[in-house]
């Protein structure tokens, strides 16, 4: 064991650790900049992504096979439930069509060409998930060539799941909303209650144990009830308005009793993601 702590080896170990900490600090410091990742890093990611596609393909195939079997088992109950919904949907669709046509006309009269709620959708496959408990990240199969931009919000079929943090040419990284680290960006959201009044705020955290998002420091007097819809507010400029986030679970006083804290049930299931949509403004 004397050999293990010989002078020369100790110096080497310390130098290696210092290099490691240095590299890590630099990459954390520059990763939020608009220009990152640099070209060489993008190239490496594209190569790794190409190899990953070959390995992820059979694994994902296996997953979709098991999914279709379980879908088949639930078909009857699902069909009955969906039939009821379809009748209501036809009505809602017609209303939505008329409203959106009217909206377009009114906007033309006001000479308001771009609104906060406009976006184009880019659909991508999920290639892989970072095998780490500290970074809830996905790698998706579309990149800059498909029009994905940094900081764009990402949705699954049912609701918001996160935002793009790194864009390469053919793939990009998505940070999930369940990331609680202090470096992750927060979404601007609003809650509309049954009377039509809105409350603005930001997603301030994620409660792992109960799988709920929290919106802290709410000082508004507007009454919010359980089940009220939560959507993105479009404030801040990165996110289009009106992306569905979830529903209100509970409203309670914060630790100091001055402001209230709203807990939100996310609409999307963050643990079952195969296809996602990137919303570009």
């Amino acid at each position, binding site marked *: 064991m004397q050999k*293990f702590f010989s002078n020369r080896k100790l110096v080497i170990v310390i130098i*290696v*650790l210092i*290099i*490691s*900490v*240095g*590299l*890590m*600090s*630099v*990459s*954390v410091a520059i*990763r939020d900049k608009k220009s990152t*990742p640099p070209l060489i*890093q993008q190239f*490496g*990611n594209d190569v*790794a*992504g190409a*190899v*990953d596609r070959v*390995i*992820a393909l059979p*694994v*994902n195939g*296996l*997953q979709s096979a098991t999914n279709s079997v379980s879908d088949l088992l639930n078909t009857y109950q699902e069909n009955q439930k969906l039939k009821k919904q379809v009748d209501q949907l036809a009505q809602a669709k017609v209303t939505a069509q008329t409203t959106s046509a009217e909206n377009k006309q009114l906007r033309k009269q006001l000479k308001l060409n771009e609104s906060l709620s406009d976006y184009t959708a880019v659909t991508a496959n*999920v*290639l*892989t*998930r*970072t*095998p*780490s*408990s*500290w*970074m*809830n*990240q*996905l*790698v998706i199969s579309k990149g800059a060539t498909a029009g994905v931009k940094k900081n764009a919000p990402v949705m699954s079929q049912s609701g918001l799941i996160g935002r793009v*943090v*790194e864009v390469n040419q053919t793939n990009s*990284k998505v940070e999930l909303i369940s990331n*609680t*680290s*202090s*470096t992750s960006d927060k979404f601007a959201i609003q809650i509309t209650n049954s009377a039509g009044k809105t409350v603005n705020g930001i997603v301030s955290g994620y409660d*792992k*144990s109960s*799988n709920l998002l929290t919106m802290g420091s709410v000082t508004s007097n507007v009454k919010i009830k359980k089940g009220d819809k939560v959507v993105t507010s479009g404030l801040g400029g990165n996110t289009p308005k009106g992306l569905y986030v979830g529903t209100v679970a509970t409203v309670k006083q914060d630790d100091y009793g001055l402001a209230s804290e709203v807990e939100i049930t996310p609409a999307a*299931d*963050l*643990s*079952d*993601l195969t296809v996602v949509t990137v919303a570009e403004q």
Partner: protein
Amino acid sequence: MRYSRLKILFPIGLFVALFLDGALSNVFAGKLFSYPYSSVLHLVLMWIIFAVFLDDRDDLSIGMWSFFVGLVFDWYYTGIFGVYMIGLPLIVYICRQIKPWLDQNFLTLLMVYIINLTILETFTFIWYSMSHVASSTVADFTVYTLGPTIATNLAIFVILYYPMRRLYLSVN
């Protein structure tokens, strides 16, 4: 199988393990990351430890390959360099140091694997905490991450031990 074949198979298997880690994490995300517990797959670490301990000739340049695979891990999965890139060669170094003292059988290898899982997970936890990527207390880390991680990976280890030993026995 000839030893020269193993020299090609080892790095290929290492990178397959790397990408399988990510792909399986996504497919089984509901089971592996069911809150508050999160178990991290470590197929790469397992492949490296099998190579260090089961290969009698010590001629696979495992240190260099583990550096490369760690670099790709940081590059592709996290975007934060210098964590797995240093952590995996560190594990190889530790394993090489303790190998001469160990009588090799299933149980000792199992213990070595538990220790190395703990070292690697703790190493990444400390490093990510320093850069504010991870925000968790030590108690939460041990209960919610380290425990489930060791449990999951031990199960995989037990399944893969005999096939892997067969592979290396046929070479030596």
